[in-house]
């Protein structure tokens, strides 16, 4: 690709005054890509208080940190962020842009791409550089995770979103040097077309699904809302959280935020217990990182047994009550 675009840009995210883990993970993979390209690694941070995070970002791999302290950017707004990212990219001409596969990245990356005319692959699981041609090679699941496609972009910037926890952050290195540079552009508030007027937080009681060491997940086979309380009981006994397939969420048996899979949450607990769910790839792609998968399903042909470590073929209704009872005994509760 002949062009004058250079350097890798990470689109950073900040929460409660701190750089979020996914951004540090992106700096790690971004560092590798930049080194392979022989280019520099840039980071962009938006909102009040981001200036003082620049030095820290440099210790995690960035060469140049661009920040805007503009108040209007404190909360994510699709229109403003798209505008700021677009005008920055037109000025700085990065060859690669990395986003988290997060609420922000999933909205911003496609819009920025639409405006700037690059090439975007979302939900990448692996990135590398073709050193000869100097282009980015992206691998991503397609067909709900049934296949993995290798994609290249014929346009710059080459863009990718990456799921949290795909890469490890670098060790903090205090001797790294870099620049922290303010973006001076004034933001015109009339750029806001879609305005956020309210935010409804879904309260979770107990352990957060993404952080749980044990996840008990149910699907269509659980049959109703009431039965899910049994799964909750099991999860509580194990100090874990419950999750669900899309079917169970669609049916309203559990809140939508418990959906695990390609279009839901990605979890990687120590133990994943899959009950009455078939193990469609679109679901499995949300829990493949689990260390140990236990499956209970009455169909011996169910795909879940292709990924589980321990399985029982049978009706969960006959297994769960004695399982809960036995766990109580063993745990002395």
């Amino acid at each position: 690709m002949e062009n004058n675009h250079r350097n890798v840009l990470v689109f950073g995210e900040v929460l409660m005054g701190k750089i979020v883990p996914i951004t540090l993970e992106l700096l790690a993979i971004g560092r590798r890509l930049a080194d392979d390209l022989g280019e520099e690694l840039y980071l962009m941070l938006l909102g009040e208080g981001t200036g003082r995070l620049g030095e820290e970002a440099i210790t995690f791999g960035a060469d140049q940190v661009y920040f805007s302290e503009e108040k209007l950017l404190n909360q994510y707004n699709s229109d403003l962020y798209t505008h700021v990212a677009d005008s920055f990219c037109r000025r700085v001409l990065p060859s690669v842009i990395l986003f988290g596969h997060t609420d922000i990245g999933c909205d911003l990356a496609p819009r920025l791409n639409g405006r700037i005319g690059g090439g975007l692959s979302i939900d990448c699981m692996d990135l590398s550089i073709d050193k000869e041609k100097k282009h980015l090679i992206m691998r991503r699941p397609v067909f709900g995770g049934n296949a993995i496609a290798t994609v290249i972009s014929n346009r710059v910037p080459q863009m990718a979103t990456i799921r949290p926890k795909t890469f490890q952050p670098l060790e903090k290195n205090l001797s790294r040097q870099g620049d922290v540079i303010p973006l001076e552009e004034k933001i015109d508030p009339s750029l806001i077309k879609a305005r956020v007027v309210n935010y409804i937080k879904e309260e979770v009681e107990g352990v957060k699904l993404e952080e749980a060491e044990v996840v008990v997940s149910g699907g269509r086979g659980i049959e109703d809302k009431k039965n899910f309380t049994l799964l909750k009981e099991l999860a509580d006994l194990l100090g874990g959280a419950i999750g669900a397939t899309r079917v169970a969420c669609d049916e309203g048996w559990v809140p939508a935020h418990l959906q695990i899979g390609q279009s839901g949450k990605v979890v990687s607990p120590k133990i994943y217990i899959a009950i009455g769910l078939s193990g469609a790839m679109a679901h499995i792609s949300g829990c493949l990182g689990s260390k140990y998968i236990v499956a209970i399903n009455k169909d011996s042909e169910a795909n879940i047994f292709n990924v589980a470590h321990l399985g029982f073929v049978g009706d969960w209704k006959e297994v769960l009550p004695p399982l809960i009872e036995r766990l109580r005994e063993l745990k002395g509760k």
Partner: protein
Amino acid sequence: MNIIVCVKQVQDPEIPPSKFKIDPETKQVIPPAGVPPVISVYDERALEAACRLKDKYKAKIVAITIGTDKASEVIRHAISMGADDGYLLCDPAFESKDSFKTAYILSKAIEKIGAFDLVLCGRQAADWGAGQVGSILGEMLTVPVVSFACDIDVVDTGLRVKRVVSDGYEILEVPMPCLITVSSEVGLPRLPSGMRIMLARKKPIPVWKATDINIEHSLLEKGHEHTEIIGLVVPERKSECEIIKGTPKEAAYEIAERLVSML
């Protein structure tokens, strides 16, 4: 209110993984024999969202799809759910997996349809799942874009949209015309009535070719693709699952002991 819904026909994503086959040479997916293609999941929900608006307000729904001649089926499905009209965009020159081409063709078709208040897309197609045609289309139409909606209603200033975020929901207000991408949290799509199915079967579905919608042919040529798929593999899944024999109770005890030993 004039609503346009972009719908795609895809290979049925609910086939068991063992039936999923690819040709790594051509990087194509081989459709499973005897399984008819379906409307992409989120597009069906986008239609549902459109129909709910039509239930409440005066609205006209037009569905469009780019696809083979078989894809008129998804337009019929849209009409059976409640769409008023639909067009099939079918031309060998349209064949592409490139999101920009897809959005460009859709934008030209929308231009021909005329004034609109709302364009709805799915958040992601159930096959290649590029997850960006809606946003690119919004930019091409130069209208505001709201992504991952699960509820849409009319207010004084335009539309009020509830969108899904990882730990809750955001409520936004957006003026019309605009483009909204729809997420599965909209809820289950309605089942078409027998009468509407009949109506959809009889309805003529106009087919538009490149020349019908004023497409600049050079933009559809190969070198214009923004992204290119250079490899396709089915990930290997090693099955080493240890199956517990015995009664459910014995299995329960075995599982309990393993779990406790691991925690």
